[in-house]
């Protein structure tokens, strides 16, 4: 019979957290920020595998870390939202409920499973002036252990989130037009990209939740349009 080792719960949690942080730290950051006409989500991503996705009419998702894990979270989010919208109404699908569900699920994996999720995700919802009680944007960040926080103005997840967060803090202005918000986001991502001075537009993944759109407010920017906006 093998002798069972005793490891204190504190130690187990600490080891898991360290493991998860390491995994997330290796990846690139992702930025979500409010601009004049909605919410901008961007990430440095030269590959064709998306880190940002549409969940529902007013809700978008961004993930960093291990692709297979956050993409799985994105898909269960889409299923959750579509079933809820089918059972009730499209306006009943809300970011807060989804963010809570993510928090539960990720916290559960962290405590029960041997390997924690090496991901952080954002759930962003653009406000609708017509919908009482939901006029304002909301941005939720859910970490690998299920801890959840809501953010105003902007939120950074991934490797250098603290550093980029303070960079954005010093430069962020309310109600920026899209072009300015994009410049700021790119400047922040450039700081994170190991001393490389510029991130070319084709290496950026940029999506918007546009307040003015009818129905599905999520839109992915094509490289051409991104070029124009960054130049203008």
């Amino acid at each position: 019979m093998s002798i069972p080792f005793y490891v204190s719960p504190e130690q187990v949690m600490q080891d898991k957290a360290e493991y998860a942080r390491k995994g997330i730290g290796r990846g690139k950051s992702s930025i979500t920020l409010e601009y004049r006409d909605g919410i901008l989500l961007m990430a440095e991503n030269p590959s064709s595998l998306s880190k940002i996705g549409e969940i529902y009419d007013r809700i978008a998702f961004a993930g960093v870390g291990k692709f297979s894990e956050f993409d799985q979270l994105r898909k269960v989010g889409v299923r959750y939202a579509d079933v809820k919208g089918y059972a009730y109404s499209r306006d009943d699908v809300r970011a807060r409920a989804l963010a809570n569900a993510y928090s539960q699920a990720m916290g559960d994996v962290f405590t029960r499973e041997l390997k924690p999720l090496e991901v952080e995700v954002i759930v962003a919802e653009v406000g609708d002036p017509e919908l009482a009680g939901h006029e304002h944007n909301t941005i939720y960040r859910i970490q690998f252990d299920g801890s959840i926080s809501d953010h105003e103005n902007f939120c950074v997840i991934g490797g250098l989130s603290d550093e980029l967060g303070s960079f954005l803090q010093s430069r962020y202005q309310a109600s920026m037009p899209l072009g300015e918000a994009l410049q700021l986001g790119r400047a922040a991502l450039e700081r994170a990209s190991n001393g490389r001075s510029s991130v070319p537009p084709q290496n950026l993944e940029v999506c918007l939740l546009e307040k003015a759109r009818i129905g599905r407010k999520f839109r992915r920017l094509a490289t051409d349009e991104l070029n124009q906006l960054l130049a203008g």
Partner: protein
Amino acid sequence: MRFSGFGGTYEGSSFAELLEIDQPQMRIAWSQLLQQTGAAPIAAPHGTTVLAFKYADGVIVAGDRLATEGYRVASRDVQKVYATDGHSMIAIAGAAGPAIEMARLMRIELEHYEKIEGEALELDGKANKLSQMVRANLPAAMQGLVVVPLFAGYDLRRRQGRIWKFDVTGGRYEEADFDATGSGGLYAKEVLKQRHHSDASRAEALEIAVTALQNAADEDRGTGGIDTVRRIFPTVLTCSHAGIQSAVESEIESAYQRSVAPRANPRMEHRGAGA
């Protein structure tokens, strides 16, 4: 990977299958319901004219607004033509309840697939998916709840408008130029056969669509005409490379004036004046 709180075991990209496997209580089994209630084939509201044909920029789909229950009017302003996504449309004919539900499910299905997979289905794929939904409805169709939609859209790859019709078994038939279905479909088709041509402008296409619907409403008691008193107009959607555009009331009204005015009988005016 499973996540607690989200439940479910389905991992594919179809919403209809997701409901069937993970949320069976939400899936409406019409046939089973009919059996359980022991009802004979029921007189669900039906009677309709919907049509689709190709024009210069793509494809146009139109439908009347009347729903009938036997000889009675069930509703004067139901919608029978829906956009299913940015480049495809469905027009429904048959039992109103299941038909509207099918249109709704189809729209969610296409959106769901696009979100899960990160890209939209090809137009052929969309038509095939609808064909499976129609086939799934076969048992209910045999009990009286028939749904036979028209499906049309702009094929971005082939750069052309395309039209499909379906039969109750889910059979899917692509139409070269035009089609119409519903109780007044035959009368609408007669007009389309005479007047339709593939290089018609959008305005001309609107006029042809309105004329065809008006002809059907004239001959078929199950099809509603244009109601200028209540201001109820047919639903008309056009789909081109740029996407779907819904014809506004004023456009339809002026198309109606152009198509009907030349046929007004001068004697009618005389009689009106004498009364």
